[in-house]
């Protein structure tokens, strides 16, 4: 038995829309150790958000979920909503993308935090208020007593995101999932929030999953990286293996993502090697490798059968028939 905090095994999520079946997540597995940081990288529509929402139980009624997700040994998939609610916000918490829309515009910011506290703990109003102000202080919001009674629109974007993080940390979760938590912020604020998250992680001994489309963030902040495409994991490795010097990126898709990042060292006006095409329609997934239509090195066996995700090198798994040769990374 491992001591992993979160073990996800063959997670699959599908729902019916307009008479067609949409396969958002198609067999995803990974593990998160306590106190470590996992980055899940993918384009929009890759299933990265849906997978985590499935674990939290935040998907709409009528979604079919199968597979396993164990938090500290407790199986989450298949639990009733009232049972899952005990874990939501207390053991595991989630922070979302747009802080302007994540907060109830007609409710005071402080009240939204005390709500998070009082949902899980039997605490009086004034004590909850004190705890909330402490949390606001923890996320570096100046003058927390004043901010407590303000409304979301009175705060700047960065401060709003801090409030959302404070709400998520209200019950000292062991796992925090940050779903594109910094995408809606400007670059400076982005860095500040990421630093804050990592500091909080260290102070509270929390595992962090952050979901993003930004490989750069993964390179800077993650311990382990999972790359998703069209609902499946296509590459998985410790960050150092993928991005460090002498590191290797095997799967063509990850390679393409890396190459598409603009670098200062490139010659001016050089064309950016952008990945052409669009992700496949989740209601009509191709038979072979999902990336084959867009892959520059696709061959016949790529479109015939889908490659399985396998550990071809210690700690490094990928799903590709013709992976990249060992080469320098970005």
């Amino acid at each position, binding site marked *: 038995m491992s001591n992993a905090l979160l073990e996800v095994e063959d997670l699959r999520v*599908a729902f*019916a829309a307009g008479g*067609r079946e949409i*396969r958002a997540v198609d067999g995803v597995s990974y593990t998160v150790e306590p106190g470590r940081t996992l980055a899940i990288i993918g384009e929009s529509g890759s299933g990265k958000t849906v997978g985590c929402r499935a674990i939290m139980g935040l998907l709409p009624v009528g979604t079919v979920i199968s597979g396993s997700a164990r938090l500290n040994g407790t199986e989450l998939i298949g639990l009733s909503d009232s049972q899952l609610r005990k874990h939501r916000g207390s053991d595991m918490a989630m922070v979302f993308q747009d802080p302007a829309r994540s907060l109830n515009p007609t409710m005071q910011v402080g009240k939204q935090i005390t709500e998070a506290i009082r949902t899980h703990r039997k605490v009086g109003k004034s004590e909850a208020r004190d705890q909330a102000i402490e949390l606001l202080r923890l996320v570096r919001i100046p003058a927390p007593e004043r901010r407590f009674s303000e409304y979301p629109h009175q705060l700047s974007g960065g401060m709003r995101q801090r409030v959302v993080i404070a709400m998520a940390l209200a019950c000292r979760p062991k796992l925090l999932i940050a779903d594109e938590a910094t995408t809606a912020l400007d670059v400076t604020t982005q860095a500040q929030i990421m630093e804050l998250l990592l500091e909080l992680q260290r102070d509270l001994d929390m595992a962090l999953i952050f979901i993003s489309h930004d490989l750069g963030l993964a390179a800077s902040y993650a311990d382990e990286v999972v790359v998703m495409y069209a609902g499946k994991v296509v590459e998985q490795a410790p960050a150092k293996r993928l991005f460090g010097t002498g590191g290797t990126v095997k799967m063509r898709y990850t390679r393409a993502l890396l190459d598409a990042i603009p670098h200062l060292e490139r010659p001016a006006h050089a064309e950016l090697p952008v990945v052409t095409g669009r992700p496949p329609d989740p209601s009509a997934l191709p038979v072979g490798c999902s990336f084959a239509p867009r892959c520059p090195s696709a061959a016949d066996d790529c479109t015939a059968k889908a490659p399985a995700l*396998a550990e071809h090198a210690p700690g490094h*798994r990928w799903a590709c028939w013709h992976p990249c040769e060992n080469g320098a990374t970005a």
Partner: protein
Amino acid sequence: MAAQLPDMTAATLTAGAQDPLPSLVSAGRLRWQRIARALRLWVPGGILILLLFVCFVWPHIYSIPPGDSGSILAAGEPPFSPGHWLGTDPNGVDIFSMLVYGGQVSFEICLAVTAIGMIVGGVLGMTAGYFGSWVDPVLSRVFDVLIAFPALVLVLAIAEVLGPSEMHLIWALSFLSVPGFARIFRASTLVARQQPYITAARLSGTSNWKIIFKHILPNVLPGVVTFGLLFMGIIVIIEGAVDFLGLGIQIPQPSWGAMIAKGQNVLTAQPEYVLIPSIVLLIFVMSLNLLGDALRERWGVR
């Protein structure tokens, strides 16, 4: 790390490839969703077509008794009597015929008023929404004035002035439909106008009217059509109300509203004189509403 990998890895290493994973959502559920969607559109649509057919085509195929006169000898026949399958009213007039001819009037008025509203209201509304400047506030105030009067009251007043008749009723009801549609057209135009491709068209020198009719109109149309169907239902009810009060289509010309009003007198003993036209009216309006809803769902109008 190796110890933590799920068992699946061993199996897949040997398999080397991955078969497509089985479907999670039952095929039955998908099929039912598709069928239900189609039914929601075609059942009300079918009913409306049927009503149209009965009112306008059936009398030409099969002769029915007149709807405005009848012999006293046949007065008060119950439904399913020979020759009068819905019975006759206290004056001997055949009820089914009254429904048919009354339906003709209701359909005509409803379609005419909606058409006038869409065309005149459409032009005015799109003009106000597209050109803005002083045109918009002025036109909007005019519409506000008309909309300020409760619908029935406005129609009553105008019908009163012009005198009761089908044509005059159409004019009077148009005072409702033109501002109503103008508002919808205006609102949709305002939204459509913000789209980048409109700016692109203007920058490329396309004439304003061409933009309005080629670009804005197709985008505005789904919302207008679904609104139009619901609006038709309202028009039929208001027209019925005017007839009910005796201030609209005059007897002996049949109309559903007048039938209901006359039925009032014998409500205690023979409620069917009120019930039958009321139910027909209900079915008509409900079909319009249901069809509007189904189209709204299909076209993704909000």
